């Protein structure tokens, strides 16, 4: 594959809560994306991006900036109002996956994309053992051989340092860091080319955060998965991402190589963000 063909491309994605009015349609820069006249919220507004094979794209912004909404839209947890997303490995990059049928979306979620949520309740079934949580992805991909799935789940959980004897335990009895690691092993169970990570270390202790980030880094290097990492924490973005998009009020206000953005931020908001980091 050409290194310069993006594995995923987003085109003019907009997620709007409300109908909009003549005022907000003509004013793209709304504070917090909220229209003062009709109260419509522009969660994501006209966002385009490319995700290249094997890279880590960071998305940073304050809470309410639309970064998590964008990720959830790409994973179909949130419906887009307009715009499109295209995967080079799916229907030759011709199909707007945001308009896919429920069956197609399921295929995309099980084979081509993995997602790790901030809240493990969204990514894991708390009433099931961690082994079954991982196996769910294998079953979704058509595996009906229990023995091979037990082997593969064991292997995946070991990969994220969940010992085999905890395989029958439900993740609700695990610590936050362990829950995130189970989510990660589930998300990569079918070797997807794309992994989406939404604030995965938020709320974890610093030492645990570092371990989870190391794990993500090693998986990325080992498997060459392209990743989109959403975080409000610029330190996480600095440590992890090759390129970075800065979001504010639903829009992308700045993007570029992470180093460049950190050294020479152009947008006023990015400057504030960077100065707070130093």
């Amino acid at each position, binding site marked *: 594959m050409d290194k310069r063909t993006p594995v995923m491309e987003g085109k003019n994605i907009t997620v709007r809560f409300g109908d909009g009015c003549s*005022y907000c349609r003509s004013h793209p820069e709304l504070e917090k994306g909220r229209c*003062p*006249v009709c109260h419509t919220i522009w969660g994501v507004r006209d966002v385009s991006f490319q995700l290249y094979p094997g890279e880590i794209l960071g998305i940073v912004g304050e809470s309410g900036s639309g970064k998590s909404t964008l990720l959830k839209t790409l994973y179909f947890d949130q419906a887009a109002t307009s715009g499109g997303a295209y995967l080079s490995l799916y229907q030759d990059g011709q199909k707007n996956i945001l308009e896919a049928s429920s069956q197609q979306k399921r295929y995309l979620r099980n084979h081509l994309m993995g997602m790790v949520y901030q809240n493990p*309740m969204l990514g894991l079934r*708390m*009433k099931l053992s961690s082994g079954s949580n991982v196996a769910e992805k294998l079953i979704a991909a058509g595996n009906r051989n229990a023995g091979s799935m037990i082997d593969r789940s064991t292997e995946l959980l070991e990969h994220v340092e969940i010992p085999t004897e905890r395989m029958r335990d*439900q993740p*609700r*009895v695990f610590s936050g860091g362990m829950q995130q690691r189970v989510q990660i092993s589930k998300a990569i169970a079918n070797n997807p080319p794309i992994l989406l990570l939404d604030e995965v270390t938020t709320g974890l202790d610093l030492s645990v955060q570092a371990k989870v980030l190391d794990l993500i880094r090693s998986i990325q290097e080992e498997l060459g998965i392209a990743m989109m990492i959403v975080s409000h924490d610029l330190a996480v973005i600095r440590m992890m991402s090759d390129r970075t998009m800065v979001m504010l009020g639903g829009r992308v206000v700045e993007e570029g190589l992470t180093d460049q953005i950190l050294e020479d931020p152009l947008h006023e908001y990015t400057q504030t963000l960077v100065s707070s980091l130093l």
Partner: protein
Amino acid sequence: MGYVAVTGGQDAIDASIELLREYRSGGKLPVDTEILRDRMKLLIDRVMSEAGLYAPDYAALALKQCEGSTEEAVFLLRAYRSTLSRNYTSRTVHGDEMHIRRRISSAFKDIPGGQMLGPTYDYVHRLLNFSLTEEKEEELQQWRAAFEEKAAQAGEVSLSDTAPRVLDLLRQEGLLEQVQEDRSEPCDVTMENLPLPAPRSAILQTLTRADTGFVSGLAYSDIRGFGMSHPTIGELRYGSLEIEVDYPLEGGGVWYVGEIFVTEVEGLMGARAGGEGIGVGYGCVFGRNDTKAIAMSVLDHALTLSIDSPTSDMEFVLLHGDCLEMNGFISHLKLPHYVTFQSKLDGLRNRKRSLEHEGND
């Protein structure tokens, strides 16, 4: 638009109460509380259960007083109970000493002591019996006399009217989940605020006093798919228990103070997380009320599970089912809220004005 302040409250209330009396006295026949007590047994049972007061005569009186509203009757009994002093605490009553009138198990065909259907509507076809509109009391009494004679001829039942518990069989086999025995003094939610998390004694007391419909609806939601406490009825028994109190004076001994009829259920379910074997949910309610007792056993069990289900949320289950509390709070919505609503309106108007102002910029 302005609001007219409502005045003349006292006159309105007096007139309303007078009107209630007019409604209560409609028709030509008086309501005899004895009839209510003896022929509306299940209604009496329900009121006593939700009131948490075993007093058939007073329950009948309460129903007479409030046109048959269970909600109001429970209210009257609870309020009456507040006027009574509690002089004694009964001795612990054991369900296995129950004088059984009905006893079934859905888990085993054969149970020691046998199954006994007793009086139940379960196998009655629910067809309106129009002939009852012309039922003659005299004929009914004749039938009763004949029935009693037949029963007498059938002789003394050879079986004892008590029986060991079905659960004991499973316990002997070691199939029941092991639980810590709790010998602490039971909590009484009528005397103290419900502690949270609630001890089991408080859970059971709250559930048995809860509104029948609330308990049944929650249990139904649980077993239909929103929870994980679908039971097999190990045993359901209905009958009377003897209530005794300790003789208060020198010398000790016990006083027999009367009997109460209860329905008791032990439901067999899964073990709680980390447990092994069969888990048990317990239900026990005043009077003849299978559904409430079973539903109670479902919720008792559901509350031991830590899963993401409404019925496993202790505060959700325990704080919303009390007849007085729920009906009191819902009915309070009818009270004037003129002041609070006025301030809400004011806030909304201000906000609308300021936004219009901004939009014009």
